[in-house]
């Protein structure tokens, strides 16, 4: 029996439209797996299919070799823009979610108290959620999804609606889950966040998988890298002569697309021979945003 998450040719068709088309992914080890795409690309539908909230037209999802619905106690889910029960005490609602995932009342209470203590929220336990400060409330609403300490976690646009403090706490939670050895599916249009956490990614566009695999490998295989130059003299025209394409001109530096290290070395040699000494000369991999924009022709945040 395979361990981990296995998604095979998952497809969902609604009337006249294929929302998710033959999506496959495998998670054999604890990691953060990015599910990336712009709005309407099928991310949320994919997450709901994987959770068993909606029936697929075809394909299957297995967790540790069994249908995911049979493993509810191992699964945590944080939907987009989720809020808690405003009139109910924090501890009571955390206990509810924990018990629904198979914990006994005692276990649920202990787990909830421990989690609140870990994040400095003990003072909120007996308060109705509406009486908790906004910052603490955001964190409580996040933690309710994981109070039962699941092994597999689905995060659907977890940063939506969070203020900077809430976003920072979300960052901390994701990092903690990585350290705790969770399997995490991070569904987001925030490509920068995916780049920050994810080892593997799958990129969707109108339901179709346009890119998938290990992030580093994807960048390495993408076919080009970028060059960042900071110099007192504008070398844009010179860079063009060397076959480089201008990506962005910023106040302090300029970024070019290059097709190999040789191009960058040739330009540097020319600059030095002309007496132009750059203060910054960096070769780096393309960002995931650039890859996404190139593949989809769209914009990301």
């Amino acid at each position, binding site marked *: 029996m395979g361990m981990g998450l296995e998604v095979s040719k998952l497809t969902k068709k*609604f*009337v006249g439209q294929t929302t998710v088309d033959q999506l496959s992914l495998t998670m054999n080890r604890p990691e953060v797996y990015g599910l990336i795409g712009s709005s309407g690309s099928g991310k949320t539908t994919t997450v*709901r299919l994987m*959770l*068993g*909230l*909606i*029936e697929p037209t075809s394909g299957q999802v297995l967790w540790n070799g069994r249908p995911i619905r049979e493993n*509810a*106690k191992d*699964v945590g*889910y*944080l*939907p*987009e*823009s*989720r*809020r*808690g*029960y405003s*009139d*109910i005490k924090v501890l*009571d609602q955390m206990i*509810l*979610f924990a*018990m*629904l*995932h*198979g914990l006994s009342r005692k276990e649920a209470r202990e787990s909830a108290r421990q989690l609140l203590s870990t994040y400095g929220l003990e003072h909120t336990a007996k308060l109705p959620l509406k009486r908790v400060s906004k910052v603490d409330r955001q964190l409580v609403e996040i933690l*309710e*999804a994981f109070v039962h300490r699941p092994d597999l976690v689905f995060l659907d646009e977890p940063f939506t609606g969070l203020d900077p403090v809430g976003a920072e706490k979300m960052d901390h939670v994701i990092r903690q889950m990585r350290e705790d050895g969770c399997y995490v599916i991070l569904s987001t249009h925030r490509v920068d966040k995916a780049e920050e956490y994810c080892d593997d990614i799958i990129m969707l566009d109108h339901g179709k998988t346009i890119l998938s695999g290990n992030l580093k490998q994807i960048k390495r295989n993408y076919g080009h890298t970028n060059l960042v130059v900071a110099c007192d003299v504008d070398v844009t025209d010179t860079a063009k002569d060397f076959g480089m394409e201008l990506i962005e001109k910023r106040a302090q530096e300029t970024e070019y697309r290059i097709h190999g290290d040789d191009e960058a070395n040739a330009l540097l040699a020319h600059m030095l021979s002309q007496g132009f000494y750059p203060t910054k000369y960096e070769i780096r991999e393309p960002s995931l945003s650039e890859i996404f924009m190139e593949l989809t022709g769209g914009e990301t945040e």
Partner: protein
Amino acid sequence: MKNTWIIFLFTLKNTINRKKFIVPTIVMVAIVMIVSLFPYISEWSEQTQSQKKAAAQTEGENVTQDTSSVKKNVSGYCYYIDDDGLIPNGLTALQNNLDTIGVVKGSGDQLEFYKHMVAGDRTRSLIYVTAPDKDSKVQLPTVHILTRDILTGVNESDVKDILSRAYISSLLTQQGLTSDITDLLQLELPTEATNTANMQLTGYLLALAVVLVSFFAVYFYGYSISVSLANEKSSRIMEMLAVSARPRQILMGKLMAMVVMAVLQFLIVMVVCMLGFYYLVPSGYTILGLELRLTSFVTWKQALAAVVFFTLGIMFYSTLNIIAGSMVSRVEDLSGAMMPVILIAIVMAIASSLIALENQSVGRAVRIAASLLPLTSPFYMPYRILGGSISARETLISAVVLLISVSFLLSLSAKVYRATMLHYGRRLRMRDVIKAKQ
């Protein structure tokens, strides 16, 4: 089952100790206590007013001297004015035939005074006879009857009958017939009327209380469950619940909690109602001449049957509200979605009460239909059960039909809930739900 129980306990705990359960319960108990006190206050008020009137009359009004000559132990007095003797022996006929009213001869020049007295005293009535209009084809005297309201004083029909017979007797006597013959000519055949259905006023009033509480519970708890579903959907909690619990489990847990609270509230109000009746309503108190009686009337089987129909009624209408609540994704859209259910409940409650009131004149088919139709049976059956006009077999059949309907609706509501739980945005229509494919 375990998840159903978890959600049931969670919902029960977080609703039963909150204002929206405690306050309405207290309010209903207070209303029942006040209504139970009403007969006592009413009788006390009448006694006080009678004493005041009697005290005023001892200051030298002619009326007091007249009433002192009439029979004692009467429930009220009636002034009779026929200065012209248009109905010979009319006063005597009234005095002989109105057992519970003391009839007193009055004077026409005090007509306005009598009218004023009657308006201020529910125990007083006025009858005055006027000459026929000269232009009228039929030259008969007109009898005018004045009481404070339709529930008090002399009975119009009785007075009309007595004075008509007195007048005809006088006409026949003028034609030379003896009193024996005039009595014979106005003879009425003795009749005996019996109702096979025992319309107990107490039973009707108790059933009315049950129906009112039922309607309140249908509205309040139906609304509560729909609000809960809409809130969970708008806050996305529903998606989290659905990962670990089946839609049917979620609905059953919530529904069971609401039903338990409704039954608990119902029992509290009914117990207070019974206690209020037993301790506060004066013995022998009557409404419209019918005595309120509770003892040896409501059996434990009737009480149990009433609770069963109350419970099934709550479940029936709550599942309709679940279907309505599942169609929306925002609480603001809820009232529009629930309106049809509330309107149906209002109409069915009123119709059931009217059918029960007009029990003798509605057709048997109507009564049977009202007993079996799930929309009406929760409101109609309490009348039949507490009125003592239904057999155990009929009660059981009605309960089974309602239970089957509830089961069907529960199944349907779970399907609708599942089909709509991931829908956000505009309010859905039923055809959208039917078209939706998972």
